[in-house]
C-alpha cells in the first residue's frame, strides 16, 4: 500500500537557521506520534507536510501527490495549528461553520456538521459566545474541532493536548485512538510522553531537526536493547530478595537506593528476569509494594537516543 504521507530527504532552513534536516519517512494509516523536545523541528515538519512551508531540499508527497501549491489535497486533510490564534470576533459556532464552508460545504451542511462536532467536544453550550471570551481549554477544543469537522482522512494535530485538563485530555486521547482505528491517518505531535504512549505505539522521534528513530515503540526498544533496563522493586525483606537476585545470571547489577525498602536491578533480559522475580516473590513470600521500571517509557528511549543519559 502506498504511504499516506511520504517525505524524501526533506530539509528546511529558515535563512541560515536549521529547521529540519534530511528527513525521509513514510506514514501509513493509524495514529503516529511525533515526539521531540521544544524546538526539535516537529512543527516545521508538520508545516512542511501541510504545504505551509516550501521545502528547501527534498520532496513531500501526500496521498501520492506533491503538497506544495496543491490545495485540492486539503479536502481530505485536517490541521490543528499549535499557535493559539483565532478570528476572535466570531463565535465558536460561526468560526466552525465558516471553516466548513471554506471546504465548499453548503451553509446547511456546514451548520449540521458544526453542531455535531461542537456537541461532541462539549462546546455546544458556549457555541454562541465570542471566541475572545473562551477559556484556554475551550479554545484548544475548538482548534481540534476545526481540524476534524470535515471528516478528513489525514489529520495533523500540532500539540493538541496543550492547555487541556486531565479529563479533557483523556477524551481527546480516546477520540484520537478511535480515529486511528477507523483507518484514518492521524499525526500527533507532542512533547508529553505519556500522552503519546496512550495514543499509539507508532512513533517518530525527532530532535535537532533530524529523525532519531521511527517505528513501533517495542521495535525501537529492541533496537536499543543493548541499553540495559532498570527495574525497581519495593517490598519487605529487600535484602533477601537482593541476595537471591545476585545469583541470577541475567542480572547485571543490584543496587540499593536511599529508600531502605527498595532495591534496583539492571538486566538485559527482561523476560527471563520477570519470570524469576515472580517465582522468588512467591518463594520468599514477599509483601510487594511496587514493581516499576523507572526507564520503561518513552522518556528513557528518548534520553538514550539523544544521549542525555
Amino acid at each position, binding site marked *: 500500500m502506498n504511504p499516506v504521507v511520504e517525505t524524501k530527504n526533506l530539509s528546511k532552513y529558515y535563512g541560515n537557521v536549521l529547521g529540519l534536516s534530511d528527513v525521509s519517512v513514510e506514514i501509513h494509516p493509524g495514529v503516529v506520534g511525533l515526539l521531540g523536545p521544544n524546538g526539535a523541528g516537529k512543527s516545521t515538519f508538520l508545516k512542511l507536510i501541510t504545504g505551509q512551508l516550501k521545502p528547501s531540499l527534498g520532496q513531500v508527497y501526500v496521498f501520492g501527490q506533491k503538497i506544495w501549491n496543491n490545495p485540492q489535497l486539503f479536502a481530505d486533510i485536517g490541521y490543528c495549528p499549535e499557535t493559539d490564534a483565532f478570528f476572535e470576533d466570531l463565535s465558536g459556532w460561526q468560526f466552525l461553520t465558516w471553516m466548513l464552508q471554506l471546504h465548499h460545504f453548503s451553509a446547511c451542511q456546514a451548520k449540521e456538521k458544526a453542531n455535531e462536532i461542537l456537541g461532541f467536544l462539549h462546546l455546544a453550550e458556549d457555541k454562541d459566545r465570542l471566541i475572545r471570551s473562551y477559556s484556554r481549554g475551550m479554545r484548544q477544543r475548538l482548534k481540534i474541532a476545526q481540524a476534524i469537522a470535515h471528516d478528513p482522512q489525514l489529520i495533523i494535530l500540532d500539540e493538541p493536548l496543550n492547555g487541556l485538563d486531565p479529563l*479533557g485530555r483523556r477524551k481527546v486521547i480516546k477520540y484520537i485512538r478511535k480515529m486511528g482505528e477507523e483507518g484514518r491517518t492521524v499525526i500527533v505531535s507532542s512533547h508529553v510522553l505519556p500522552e503519546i504512549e496512550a495514543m499509539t505505539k507508532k512513533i517518530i522521534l525527532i530532535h535537532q531537526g533530524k529523525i532519531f528513530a521511527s517505528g513501533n515503540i517495542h521495535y525501537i526498544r529492541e533496537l536499543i536493547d543493548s541499553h540495559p533496563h532498570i527495574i525497581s522493586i519495593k517490598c519487605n525483606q529487600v535484602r533477601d530478595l537482593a541476595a537471591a537476585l545476585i545469583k541470577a545470571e541475567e542480572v547485571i547489577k543490584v543496587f540499593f537506593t536511599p529508600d531502605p525498602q527498595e532495591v534496583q536491578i539492571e538486566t538485559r533480559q527482561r523476560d527471563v528476569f520477570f519470570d524469576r522475580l*515472580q517465582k522468588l516473590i512467591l518463594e520468599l*513470600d514477599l509483601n510487594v509494594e511496587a514493581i516499576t521500571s523507572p526507564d520503561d517509557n518513552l522518556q528513557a528511549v528518548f534520553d538514550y537516543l539523544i544521549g542525555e543519559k
Partner: protein
Amino acid sequence: MTPAAKILDLQRIGYNYGQIKALSGVSITVEKGPVGLLGPNGAGKSTLLRLLLGFLTIQEGQGKVMGYDVAREKTRVRQIVGYMPEDESYVPGIDGVTLTALLGELSGMPRQEAMKRAHDVLFYVGLEESRYRRVESYSKGMRQRLKLAQALVHDPQLILLDEPTSGLDPQGREEILELITDISNHGVQVLVSSHILPDIEETCQEVIILNQGQVAAQGNLQELKKLNYNLYELKVAGEAAPFLAKLQERGCRWEQEEDLWKLYLPRELSPRVIFELAVEEKVQVRHLVKSQSRLEDLFAQVVGEEE
C-alpha cells in the same frame, strides 16, 4: 520576613465576571508552602491568583496574603509577592537582562542592584547564554524561564506560579520543577497553580483542589491520598484476559486505563494472589504499584468525571 504570617488566609471569597460565577465562598488557610492549587480549566484558579494580586477586586469576603490585606494593602502585597503569569507575556524589543532588571526596578530596587540581581536570577534559571538576546526571539521554554526569573528578581517572600510548566518538554518541565523545589527549600513560599497533576505531586506538600469556583478539597497531600481504596496498578506482559478473569473470580474489580490495569483488591485478599495467578496463567507482572490512589484518582473522585 514575618514567619508568623500565614501565606493565605481567605474567608468566603466570591467573584463574578458579570453573570458568570467564577468563585464563590472560597475559604482557604495555608500556613506554609509549597502549596498546590489544582483544578480543571475554568475552575477559578487564575481568578483566585488575580484576586490575590489585586488585579481584580474582591467582591465578597476578605483575604490576606502573607498577613497583608489584599484589598487594602495592594502595594505591600505586590512588593513581597512574585508572580509568574500563565500566558505568554513580555515586552518586545529588549533583551532578557533589560526586561528582568526593569521589572526589578519597578519593584523598588535601585537600578544597579536590579541589574546585578537580574544577571543572578537569569543565571539561576539557566538563561545565562541568552541573556543578551531579544526576548521575542526566545523559544517557548526560554520564555517560561524568563517569566520565572522576573518573578524572582526582587527576592519575594512568596511566589505565585500560574501553570509554570505549560508547553514545556519533559526535560524543561523537570528542570522548572527542580527550580521550584529549590526555591521553596531556600525559604521562599511557593504557590503553584496547575492542572498537571504530577507537577503538584512533585513540588508540593499542601494541596487545594478547586472545582467550579469552590474548594473541593484541601489539606496535606499525603493525608488526602490516604482516603483511598485498596488499589493496585499493574501492567502485564502476556495474555491478560484469563489472568484477569481468574482475579475476578477471587472478588477483584478492575478497570482498564490505556495499557494500565487498575485492580481493586478486597482488603482481606493478600496481594500475593496476584503473583500466584500470574505464574499460573503464565503472564508477567511488569509493573505493580500499590497506589495510594494517585492524585489523578483523587482528583477524579473529588471533581467527578462527567461522561
